[in-house]
């Protein structure tokens, strides 16, 4: 029963809250969508923290998504020992970058008084959770090696089963506690998205790649 709650109900609830909540917040309070950058108040730690964090976490997140939704591609990409070894190494490097980055950001919020002044309780919650999430991710990477392959036989079918509404929690219920914590925190973070600054991920400015430089706008007339 608990397993159904944790690995079937909770993920669905978390996804629903995350998606519906973010859309609702966007529609009702778009003004609140911002990265809440604090670089203006402190620049040096911010450079190392934010750069390491984002350059670590964004590829890591994308690779996870790849593992969930493009397992065949992922499989091909580490089907030889060399590529598997490379994947393992890349994962660890990215994870450590993210961990150090999150650590610096936490340290910065604790020690720089101007930054602490503008830190909200939610900032503490998500930053600590993210730090913990990356930490447990690295535990998995170091203690349970070759995650690039076992991932495809545990997490991937579980997520797939959830995607197609034929939940099969048995793929993950037998895994050790560290795995479970990592999975659950991941969904918790997703659920927290609409309640935190994580909404900044949802408004990644793709259109800057092609939009024209100058925007001239008439009131109630077509854009010229």
């Amino acid at each position: 029963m608990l397993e159904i709650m944790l690995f079937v109900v909770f993920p669905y609830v978390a996804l629903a809250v995350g998606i519906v909540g973010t859309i609702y917040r966007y529609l009702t309070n778009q003004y609140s969508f911002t990265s809440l950058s604090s670089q203006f108040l402190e620049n040096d730690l911010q450079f190392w923290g934010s750069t390491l964090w984002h350059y670590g976490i964004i590829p890591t997140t994308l690779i996870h998504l790849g593992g969930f939704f493009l397992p065949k591609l992922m499989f091909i990409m580490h089907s030889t020992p060399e590529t598997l070894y490379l994947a393992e190494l890349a994962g660890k490097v990215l994870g450590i970058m993210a961990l150090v980055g999150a650590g610096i950001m936490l340290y910065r919020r604790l020690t720089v008084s101007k930054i602490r002044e503008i830190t909200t309780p939610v900032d503490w919650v998500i930053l600590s959770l993210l730090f913990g999430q990356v930490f447990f991710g690295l535990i998995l990477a170091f203690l349970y090696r070759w995650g690039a392959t076992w991932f495809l036989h545990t997490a991937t079918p579980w997520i797939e089963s959830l995607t197609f509404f034929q939940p099969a929690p048995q793929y993950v219920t037998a895994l050790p506690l560290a795995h479970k914590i990592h999975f659950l925190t991941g969904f918790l973070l997703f659920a927290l998205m609409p309640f935190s600054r994580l909404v900044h991920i949802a408004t990644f400015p793709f259109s800057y790649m092609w939009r024209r430089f100058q925007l001239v706008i008439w009131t109630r007339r077509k854009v010229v």
Partner: protein
Amino acid sequence: MKVRSQVSMVFHLDKCIGCHTCSIACKNIWTDREGAEYMWWNNVETKPGVGFPTQWEDQEKYHGGWELNDKPKNPELKLKLQNRLQTFTNLFSNPAMPTMDDYYEPWTYKYGDLFNSPLGDDQPTARPISRIDGKPIDIESGPNWDDDLGGSNIYAVNDPLLATMSAEEKQRLFSIEQLFYFYMPRICNHCLNAACGAACPSGAIYKRAEDGVVLINQDKCRGWRMCVSACPYKKTYYNWSTGKSEKCILCYPRLESGQAPACFHSCVGRIRYLGVLLYDADQIEDALKVPDEQLVQRQRDMILDPHDPKVVAAAKESGVPDGVITAAQNSPVYQYVKEWEMALPLHPEYRTLPMLFYVPPLLPVLNATQPNGTQRVETDLFSSLENARVPVRYMSRTLAAGNDELVIKSYQKMIAVRIYKRAETVGDVTKEEADAALAKAGMTAEEAEAIYHLTSLPNYQERFVIPPYSREGDIEELYDPQQRKAEMGFGKRQGPQRGL
């Protein structure tokens, strides 16, 4: 020809007394709230001086504005800050981000201590504390820290423009009895090729087609803070509390109700003029792909004669309302910029096509004292402008991308008007001298009269020719835009709590 209208501005620096009334008017209306305390949408700097934020003109440090590649055959404009790809790689930490130290840390005083201190031998004092974290601070800089310190070898020597001047020119600027400085009030230039907007990853910064006011859509701004670096004039500011960037809005709520912007309205020296310019938007790009010295001329060429029937027809074609065209025909800005060619754009070499123009400062124009202690207008000042206290070189670096001729021409007109009026009212200059001066400046007596009138005697309606707006027909006001003005600024609905 694609005709657009732009509410444009002229600041007559010769009239600015450096009183900062404009800055205060603006602050009281728009930026007197948390996160915005350090912002001065209007600021007045002493030049030569470091300006605000410190050394904003040093684009090697701030990377503002546009650059032309050095291929004359295939000229291309790019943001000095970064290309599109770099915009994405720099999102997480903007390498050219000015920080609060480049502006100043806003502070208040612990006034409570004056009342609550225990009885003692000393007077209680109100210590300065940071408006950010409430900690006591030593005030080390402020928005106008080097006010009146032109010639100072602590502040003014750090003016980035001086680096481009010869040792001799510099020495002249700093020698005691030759000292020269002036005040330069600055607001957003509401540029035609705005670098702030071009750099914004979210596309939140736009130009209103009706009047050319450049605004940041606060709902679309995501705090990527690229505009802050990209604006070469440092006229977008990052609100550290709301996580959004903000800038001068040219008091559009006032314009829409027929009032001049607050800084214009309150200006004690009456140095400010506001009016519509019609321009040809098709020329924007080509006008910027020319060498520095030609930039001002090309910008002038873009500005169209609102009396020309062809221009009027094209303007109507492009959707410019009749009332706006009439306003353009009466625009004092058109007279200063185009007819008289006296007003020049600030740092045209940044290639943003700024639409705020400055008449260069003339005082102190007198460089010769008569034996009896009185001073006499130099009638041969044209030939001796090089010896005047006004450093032409410095002015041309500021207002003409280094093109001395343009500045000299503007000065010649101002001096000719002076000599002409002096001959008329004081009489210590002969009529012949005055006529010679006019001839040399290439102007008629009527033009001199018109310049004199608009410079010295204009009334409110002559200084501010505000085009008619029809906002009540254009938009439906669904909520009161003033409801959160005191805490959050105009048009905002959410309270001042920091985002989640």
